[in-house]
């Protein structure tokens, strides 16, 4: 099915061309599509009512009534009564439209891909339970096959967060002690940005993630690659970088499969360089950004849980060089 751009409204004119990669106005999946249509229906009906009331007000201000008090009260009574009936009808209609949309959105999906997302201050842990082979664990990036429904099982490790990819679906909270589920589908390959929508502390603003939808074959290949251990260092600098990583406190928090690093407090870095962004959507995944992040995470993202680990310039160079090869 071709995706039609939704009818443009005055609302959209204000932001010409900026319906972007994190926008409820540019639906790219059936769930967001249904919500977008409901949104436009609501906006049209409600804007019409709003205008109608203001028109009545304008007329009321301009006219001069010559009605006797008794006649005025009778006429006003009829008008107010009619307006109340109309209100009830409109409300009922909008409520029913909401129920229908809810049913459409929550209709069970067949053979969904299951992805577990666990939210932490201030990043996202993404796990693909093993279909064939070990679990795949990554962070701040959710790869999905385009066209296939994805069942996202949501949990929170510390405080309440909220999972929101507006181009694909509405949001759902991640709550300690509860398990929530969200089903979404991306119709076409593409990158859709998501962000935590529930205030979760100091770096709530920098808790983003990418949903990357790929053709099914590309997704299968990515998944197979992610199941492998990290690549062996390609050269001397990379090998030195890996030794530094293992000897310094890095491994206490991070796991890099195939090395000594087995920490679980921070993101799994086994295939770090295959991701599009660093630090939950803050920085592009480049060697330079990696070095900057490791050198001073607290300046880039104040308050985050990664400490500054003192490294010599050579060690910093080597570690970032090695991490940049973990594809």
């Amino acid at each position, binding site marked *: 099915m071709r995706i039609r751009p939704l009818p443009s409204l005055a609302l959209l004119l204000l932001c010409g061309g900026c319906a972007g990669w994190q926008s409820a106005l540019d639906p790219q999946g059936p769930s967001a599509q249904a919500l977008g249509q409901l949104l436009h229906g609501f906006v049209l009906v409600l804007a019409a009512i709003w205008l109608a009331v203001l028109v009545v007000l304008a007329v009321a201000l301009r006219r001069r009534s010559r009605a006797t008090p008794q006649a005025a009260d009778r006429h006003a009574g009829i008008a107010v009564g009619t307006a109340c009936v109309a209100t009830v009808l409109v409300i009922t209609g909008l409520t029913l439209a909401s129920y229908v949309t809810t049913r459409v959105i929550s209709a069970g999906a067949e053979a969904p891909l299951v992805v577990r997302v666990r939210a932490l201050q201030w990043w996202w842990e993404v796990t693909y339970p093993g279909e064939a082979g070990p679990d795949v664990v990554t962070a701040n990036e959710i790869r999905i096959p385009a066209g296939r429904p994805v069942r996202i099982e949501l949990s929170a490790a510390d405080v309440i967060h909220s999972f929101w990819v507006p181009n694909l679906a*509405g949001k759902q909270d991640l709550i300690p002690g509860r398990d929530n589920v969200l089903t979404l589908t991306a119709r076409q390959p593409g990158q859709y940005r998501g962000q935590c*929508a529930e205030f979760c502390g100091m770096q709530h*603003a920098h808790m983003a993630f990418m949903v990357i939808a790929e053709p099914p074959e590309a997704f299968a290949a990515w998944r197979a690659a992610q199941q492998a251990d990290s690549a062996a260092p390609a050269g001397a600098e990379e090998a030195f970088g890996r030794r530094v990583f293992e000897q310094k406190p890095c491994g206490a928090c991070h796991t890099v499969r195939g090395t000594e690093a087995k920490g679980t407090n921070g993101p799994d870095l086994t295939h770090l360089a295959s991701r599009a962004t660093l630090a939950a959507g803050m920085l592009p995944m480049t060697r330079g950004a990696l070095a900057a992040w490791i050198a001073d995470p607290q300046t880039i993202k104040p308050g985050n849980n990664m400490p500054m680990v003192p490294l010599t310039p050579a060690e910093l160079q080597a570690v970032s060089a090695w991490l940049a090869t973990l594809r």
Partner: protein
Amino acid sequence: MSARIQDDQRDTDLADAPLDAALRRVWDTPRGVWGALATVDHKVIGRRYIATAFVFLAFGGVLALLMRWQLARPESRVLTPDLYNQIFTVHGTSMMFLFAVPVMEAMAVYLVPLMVGTRNIAFPRLNAFSYWMYLVGGILLWGAFLVDMGPDIGWFAYVPLAGPQYGAGKRVDIWAQMITFTEISALAVAVEIVVTVLKQRAPGMSLDRIPLFVWAMLVTSFIIIMAMPAVMVASTALILDRLVGTHFFNPAEGGDVLLWQHLFWFFGHPEVYIIFLPAVGMISSILPTFVRRPIFGYLPLVLAMVSVGILSFGLWVHHMFTTGLPRLGESFFTASSMAIALPSGIQIFCWLATIWYGRPVYRTPFLFILAFFFTFIMGGMTGVMVASVPLDTQLHDSYFVVAHFHYVLVGGAVFPLLGGIYYWFPKFTGRMMSERIGKWVAGLLFTAFNFTFFPMHVLGLLGMPRRVYTYQLDMGWGGLNLFVSLSAVVLAAGFLLFFYDAVRSARHGEPAGDNPWGAATLEWATASPPPSYNFARLPVVRSANPLWEDDGVLPVAGGLRVDRRELLVTTVGDALPEARESSPRPTIWPLWSALATTALLLGSILTPWAVVWGAVPVTIALIGWFWPGGRKEEES
């Protein structure tokens, strides 16, 4: 004449001038510092309350400007994330708990006794106590903020972020105790209003002749009495979790984090109507004056307010539509949230009908009512949108919601309030505010408000979440945010002009006279500002618009003693005189009681033992409060 007879002198025995002198002797607040601290005059306390609330509005506005400065550009570093989070928390907390609710109650403290034609509010000492508690609560929050200990967990303080594990330090405790202060003061005022309205109305003011603002405050007060305990339970449980390690909200120990949200919003949603209902009451009371005819639909308006009050308790879950509650429950709350559009609609329709058959006079208070129509109805419409479960999953916690509730609260409550200030300022001070400046204020605020907040709807739909201290350049939100920030400066200029006008007019405004607008309700039947005893002879009411009937000459009731503070108690339904009741004299004990309670509550932030030791001074203060002093008022 013997002293004995003088003791029992009644107002009917005296001519106007000696009656005034006699009443001043017993009702006037003593001069000097002691008098200022001991006063129990509802007008003095009401004025203080209003002024204090507007000071907190100004403070909260400064914080809003700081946030807009930070958000004007992407990845701006004007504020640190820690400071930003304190600022948005203190902004929200201050606006809700220190401005919006108190200012509405303050207007009622001043106006309700005048509008029902009595000499003082019920429980005047409790009234004094409530102001001191409110003031201390406000100083606590702002003092903490100024020393970098402001709460940083949002005005909603969701656990576990506000719990012992993630909300380190004393910041959350300060927030939770500030709640206790403001809730105590709000509850006290609510009780006073209920009793004043039900038992102290002027003879003849039967239920169907009560001014609509008074009806609104009666409903609001009942909402407060039923809703505020929920948040006191919640904040107390939070303090216990933090202070003595209970586990109300800890899922690892059998607690539940959603319990907090249920309790908070069971209070938090009625809270919106606690702010909004007084405002619609003001509109219903102001509007007839400026369209020169009685309000259309008195009974439907009263019933609409009562049903809003009842429905407001059935909506709280619409703040939790994304938490994963069962579908059936969510659907129920969608329906109830939609249903409240009906009573809200009825009020709008009745006002429109009133204007339709009236002759509008475009004075400043009326301009604010027009601004209300434009703005509030839009807020109501977006309210219907967020009431829909599926739509809310896109809108919730985005800037769309920020736009929505500012439209409802500023458009729906602050605009009518400012209209009310322009309207009642002559009664408060005896002087008019400037009509010329007033029109500028109304125009500036209306325009700048819409420029500031309308784009936020779009930002929300473009995916901008609330409560973010910054956003990245490539999100494409920069242009709109800059526009919003610039508009916010103009909005602030509008408020500045309003404050300038209020301060200037209080000293140099045109003298107002008793009834400058030609209004119909009883507060205009006495001098401006009213004497300490409000009415020399208690008015008798024979219609809903007493000053518009019988050429504005009111019949009066007599027989009250003039040698002690005395007012008339009437029946609940028909306001038939029942008894003479004495009203207390000034006393310093409410202030001591408030300070003792403050010591207890502040101490409890540091140690649970403060609750034990702190109870001693509270007890002493309360004993002092109720100790018989042999005054004439205590004889009856």
